[in-house]
């Protein structure tokens, strides 16, 4: 039921609004370059009354207002950063779907790397331990010769009866 939550939210949020469709034709800017920037920005801005939806996906009236604000400011010549700054100053960090790297979000942004570092360390320790024990018993010449014989036999055997599991 993984989309259910979104849907239920939508239902609660959008009643009595109509179908869940986003950007309306009359909002679209005539300059395709600016419109492309508006769309890219919109994908990073949260519809504050929706459940994890960007203003690009939502047709809640607030999302529509935010889309219009973004476009007005783009037309006025503001940079993407300035527009995001403005929205953050007005609505807080909550409005960004991609949180900025700040003290509060270090754990979010660097957490996966910390997990990777510890995991890699653990895996490296584990792998080296696995290897050391094997090295403890090197083959002497007689053993090596015997292994070579066995391998030759196994090869000959395999040519007659290809054993699919030999490599698996």
């Amino acid at each position, binding site marked *: *039921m*993984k*989309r*259910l*939550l*979104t*849907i*239920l*939210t939508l*239902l609660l949020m959008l009643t*009595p609004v*109509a*179908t*869940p*469709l*986003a*950007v309306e*034709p009359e909002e679209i800017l005539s300059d395709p370059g600016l419109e492309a920037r508006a769309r890219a920005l919109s*994908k*990073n801005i*949260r519809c504050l009354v929706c*459940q*994890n939806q*960007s203003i690009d*996906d939502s047709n809640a009236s607030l999302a529509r207002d935010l889309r219009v604000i973004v476009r007005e400011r783009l037309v006025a010549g503001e940079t993407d950063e300035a527009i995001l700054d403005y929205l953050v100053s007005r609505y*807080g*960090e*909550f*409005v*960004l*779907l*991609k*949180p900025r790297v700040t003290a509060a*979000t270090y*754990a*979010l*942004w660097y*957490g*996966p790397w910390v*997990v*990777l570092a510890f*995991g890699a360390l653990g*895996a490296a320790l584990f792998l080296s331990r*696995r*290897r050391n*024990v*094997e090295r403890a*018993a090197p*083959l002497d010449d*007689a*053993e090596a010769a*015997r292994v070579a014989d066995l391998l030759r036999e*196994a090869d000959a055997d395999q040519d007659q009866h*290809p*054993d*699919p*599991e*030999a*490599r*698996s």
Partner: protein
Amino acid sequence: MIAELGHYALALALCVAVVQSTVPLYGAARGDDILMSLARPAASAQFLAILVAFGALTHGYVTSDFSILNVAQNSHSLKPMLYKVSGVWGNHEGSMVLWVLILALFGFAVAAFGNNLPPSLRARVLSVQGMIGVGFLGFILLTSNPFERLIPAPLDGRDLNPLLQDPGLAFHPPMLYLGYVGFSMAFSFAVAALIEGRVDPAWARWVRPWTLAAWTSLTGGIALGSWWAYYELGWGGWWYWDPVENASFMPWLAGTALLHSAIVVEKRDALKSWTILLAIITFGLSLMGTFLVRSGVLTSVHAFAVDPERGLVILALLTIAIGGALILFAIRAPSMKLGGMFQPISREGGLVMNNLLLSVATATVFIGTLYPLFLDATTGEKVSVGPPFFNAAFVPVMMPLVLLVAVGPMLAWKRGDLPGAMARLWTAAILSIAAAGFVWSQQNDVAFGPIVGFAFAGWLAGGSITEWAERIALFRVPLATSLARAGGLPRSAHGMTLAHLGLAIFICGAVADSFWRQEVVVNAKPGETVSIAGFDLTLDKIERTRGPNYQTETAHLSVSRDGAPVTTLRPERRFYPVQQMPTTEAAIHSTFLADLYAAIGEGGDRQGWTVRVWHNPLVPWIWAGCLVMVIGGLVSLSDRRLRVGAPKRRTNAPSAAQVAGAD
């Protein structure tokens, strides 16, 4: 009457589960065969009782018995029969009954097919399975009774949420639950092994097929849900990194890791503690998925079950199950014997890397999904973590994994030859460069993303095919011999190749869609034309008709390309009067290379209609890739070594100790 029988059967199942979770466990500790032998009939009885309860609830839905509160709230007499049946699990209470039914089904399967399991292990596995049953049956009976009566009965029901009245979603929950709950088998086996204090390859031979079956179902379930979101929500997207989606994706990632580490336990008797830990984590993430959807924790009040108390009960169950298992792990795992030795560059080493990367990927999704909650609870600050974060954090972890997937299977067990493997991967390198070059030549403006994406997909596909071709010595021996060798390969080898190829196909689809999607939104009146990606769509007319339980407005968009007619798309806007709710039914024209996707919004004859058209390149490959992965899982599942009860084949891989001791 039938509803009361169902309620009674649920209570009976709880009683049986209590017996199943205690007596055989005690018997196993005492070495008492008679007490242990109680596990199998108990598991069968529990399954039967829950089946009766599920049947009773289904009967209520099929006959539209609105004196049952649950039916009255979620069904309607005019609803098509398919959705009457799927309505059983389209709500909190009914879906929990399905959950325990599948749980008991797995227990029943162990009871029915577990002849070759050591009796004490079987008794303990079934006991642990019984404990999970006790928790969830108790939860249903105490907080979520699906058989509650409603007197007086209303004349008709409130209908199922129209968005859920869809064939894709009818089968999505059962498959998803088969996956979620299927991981309970790995969990029960892990806990039973911890109690026994012993893990051997025989244990892994049992855990692998159950994990594989669960993984295959979960893959199918997630794909169905994603497909449904794609065509039903009318947004043209297929994955939103929504918390509920992530809740199903985390067990998938962990389960994928488990699937691979269980191979090492089976073949090489190594990675045992880690595999047990992974089994516990995977099922823990499944339980967390169940919790997240029902608690409303991440979403304030808009969850499946609005009652936060229910969420708390599931959280308590989660804590007891996973906390208990982890404590047991901490006590028992250090005493487990380490298994076979291997070099870092080896198949085992590759699978360790696979597990490392998949674990980091799981952790990334976990952190991203729960971070807003964590930050809010600790500092009161509110942040949003949405798709841009996940795309930035998740993709870099998956990229080395994709590189590795081609290399790992080329390495031998114990001691691999990396330069040799890389030399044999020249075909993969060529395919990778060819894919990147083709994409580069086709793009108008050079974008780096798709070139890299297709290079990775080409590498993965090339590597998988090369590995398979080498196994059957394709082009090195006569073709007939190669085909004979292919026939002699274990099915799990074919399954692996298919699953990895499926991943490559999926990557192509995902990369193409995220970089090359086009969208046009216009306000159109009948007779006007929309152009996108070389297609011209003309709005012929809007037709108003009635369905069985809805009214609909259907747009007729005739599609042509360079003047030649292609097809007619008929997107709909439906209105369901019972729930007072509109839905969109997108119209999709799928070809091998792209989807042409149309949806209509509000409008009227005078002001025109909002028409949205997307051109989504390679989107069909996303689901084709998932389908190939599922087929790979099924093929692998049909391997005789994994088939329950099949005799163990002689292995001719003597361990290092045996070789050394041979003189």
